[in-house]
């Protein structure tokens, strides 16, 4: 049997059931009543002890949402979602919110430990001594943030890093000013839904001229059954500030699909830089395509100031459906947007992902490098928009989209849109689609690699340009994750 055929067979028999984050933590939780009404929105707002203006903001979003239709233009198929059958809020049961890490339910701490994320600063501090780099972590468990580490040290530098629910209470002026300023409440069906019911997420503010002294990171975990997760992240880099932020996501294995509709907003003022990296590994469903997370996410960055820079790097390996287009609005003159993406689909996963680079300012530049890898019966679409406004003199974009197919039951598609209203704009687009060839596999095997090692090596070569963009310690993780998500075709 030819090697590729064999690979196909292996992919077919793949247990995505090998998903190693698929355990469930048995913990008592408090939920909002099933379904979504104005009452649900009020309930969530009250749970969070929110000021009146926040409740009003949510209610407006909710009313708007009721008039909206779910988008259907993406190349993904799924049965209709009954929004009244979901829970919109679930929190680990606790009398009060955790005051310190020692108040956190040990079960939850154990969960994060299992995921390889140390929440205890003490442990993390021990890490420093052994030379490991320091990462401040915010952990979101279902609907609430359970721990944020290194808070004090960050505060010394003037950096605010806390659950957004806390920021709404403690820094209402900042939140009011920026929340919804990049992704308006009315932006799209899922973003509007999120605006109404978001329960937690991270808030970051880096003041003028400050280089954030460590990587910031949030780990999202969906635990409860039938519960949507709607997190909201807001990151502001004030003039001349720099921050690098990483999010990671996992969920238990479940037969039913779970909804995840997040909104992330980034604001970079003059000369500021934000680097946002994602390693998305939500449960992808089993080998038959049953279960898995529906990941409908709106991520957008606003290069508001001159010479500001926003860079998105994503490694997408999980979720049954991914609908996600991290974008940059290049408003400031000479601002720069970057999008580096690795999207891997296997089993019956469907990925429709890409980016939008909206050039508004003068001499703005953007760069898009997308690597899609499809195996099994999956479908992998790159959808991208590059546009230049009338005033965007000297706008430049370079786009490179490569797709790699493993086997012949999967599909890869590239849908680039280009709009230019300024004749001086220069947009370059390159795209390739290739297959892992029998010859490449044979060559690698002749040198001693088994078929899975060979496939892993070839795939890692294929995504190299993007892996290089990840912070060092996550690049290694991501490389492993790539192998795991192609398991069956890769060792």
């Amino acid at each position, binding site marked *: 049997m030819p090697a590729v055929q064999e690979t196909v067979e292996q992919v077919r028999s793949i247990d995505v059931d090998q998903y190693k984050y698929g355990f469930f933590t048995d913990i008592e939780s408090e939920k909002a009543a099933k379904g979504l009404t104005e009452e649900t929105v009020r309930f969530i707002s009250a749970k969070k002890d929110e000021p009146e203006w926040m409740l009003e903001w949510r209610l407006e979003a909710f009313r708007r949402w009721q008039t909206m239709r779910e988008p259907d233009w993406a190349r993904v198929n799924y049965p209709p979602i009954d929004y009244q059958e979901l829970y919109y809020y679930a929190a680990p049961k606790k009398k009060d919110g955790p005051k310190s890490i020692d108040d956190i339910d040990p079960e939850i701490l154990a969960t994060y430990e299992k995921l390889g994320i140390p929440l205890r600063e003490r442990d993390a501090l021990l890490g420093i001594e052994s030379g490991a780099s320091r990462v401040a972590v915010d952990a979101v468990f279902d609907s609430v943030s359970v721990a944020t580490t290194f808070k004090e040290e960050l505060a010394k530098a003037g950096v605010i890093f806390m659950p957004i629910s806390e920021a709404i209470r403690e820094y209402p002026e900042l939140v009011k000013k920026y929340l919804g300023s990049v992704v308006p409440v009315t932006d799209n069906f899922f973003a509007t839904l999120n605006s109404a019911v978001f329960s937690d997420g991270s808030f970051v503010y880096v003041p003028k001229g400050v280089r954030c002294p460590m990587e910031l990171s949030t780990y999202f975990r969906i635990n409860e059954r039938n519960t949507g997760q709607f997190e909201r992240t807001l990151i502001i880099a004030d003039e001349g500030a720099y921050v690098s932020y990483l999010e990671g996501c996992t969920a238990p294995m479940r037969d039913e699909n779970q909804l995840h509709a997040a909104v992330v907003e980034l604001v970079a003022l003059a000369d500021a830089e934000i680097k946002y990296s994602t390693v998305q590994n939500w449960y992808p469903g089993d080998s038959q395509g049953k279960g898995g997370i529906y990941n409908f996410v709106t991520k957008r960055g606003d290069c508001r100031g001159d010479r500001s820079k926003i860079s998105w790097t994503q490694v997408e390996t999980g979720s049954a459906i991914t609908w996600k287009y991290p974008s940059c609005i290049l408003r400031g003159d000479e601002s720069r947007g970057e999008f580096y993406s690795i999207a891997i689909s296997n089993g019956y996963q469907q990925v429709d992902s890409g980016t939008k680079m909206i050039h508004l300012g003068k001499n703005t530049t953007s760069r898009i490098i997308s690597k899609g890898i499809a195996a099994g019966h999956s479908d992998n679409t790159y959808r991208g928009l590059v546009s230049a406004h009338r005033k965007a003199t000297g706008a430049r974009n370079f786009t490179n989209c490569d797709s790699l197919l493993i086997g012949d039951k999967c599909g890869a598609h590239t849908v680039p849109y280009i709009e230019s209203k300024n004749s001086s704009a220069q947009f370059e687009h390159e795209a390739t689609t290739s297959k892992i060839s029998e010859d490449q596999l*044979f060559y690698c095997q002749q040198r001693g690699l088994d078929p899975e090692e060979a496939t892993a090596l070839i795939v890692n070569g294929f995504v190299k340009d993007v892996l290089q963009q990840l912070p060092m310690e996550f690049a290694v993780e991501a490389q492993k994750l790539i192998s795991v998500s192609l398991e069956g075709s890769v060792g």
Partner: protein
Amino acid sequence: MAMLEIDNLHAKIEGEEGREILKGLTLSVNPGEVHAIMGPNGSGKSTLSYILAGKEDYEVTDGSVTFEGEDLLEMEIDERAAKGLFLAFQYPIEVPGVATMTFLRSALNAQRKKRGEEEISTPDFLRLIRERAGGLGISQDMLKRGVNVGFSGGEKKRAEILQMAVLQPKLCILDETDSGLDIDALKVVSEGVNALRSPDRAMIVITHYQRLLNHIVPDVVHVMNKGRIVRSGGKELALELEANGYAEYQQDAA
């Protein structure tokens, strides 16, 4: 005992209407020996090397191959490699994004793992590759580039010999390693190959040109035609072929 024993090997292209390419090939190679195989285009030389390496486009219909007493045809491709069989490709394959250095290290460690040996340490590996690359005139820059990506024809051939020198196989099969090499490169590559000659290593050198055999002097020369070894002799046979061509054998077979 011979290292490689090919007996009455028949093979065809995989599939219903697959044409028979090897038609009863017999060949025996002992450790320490260098065998040259010459023969007209399309006579099945590359096919033989692919079948020995385990490529899956062919089906063996009769005969047997043993390597150090074991049934070679039963082994997986990577298992054969780990046991010490190496094929320098007539047309080396590109693996974009994988640095030659990384590729070789992964390959060497994969082989070692299969043989139950320890992985090579980073300093040891660096020392080994630096030494071998230097001898073949391969720059550090080339080692950092993707495997065979953007290499010239001659560079690809040199890189194949580097891989062989690093992996240190027992049986080296060189398929037209001389084609595409300029005169100086031919010398460098031949020296690289000669440096690997040893009493416990055997080589099968496939070539069209006697010129290579001035540098890599064979113990035995075989003439292959239409899927069979039709004549074997000493190194002077190559000179005879150079002078007379293959006409005589092609008539014989007709």
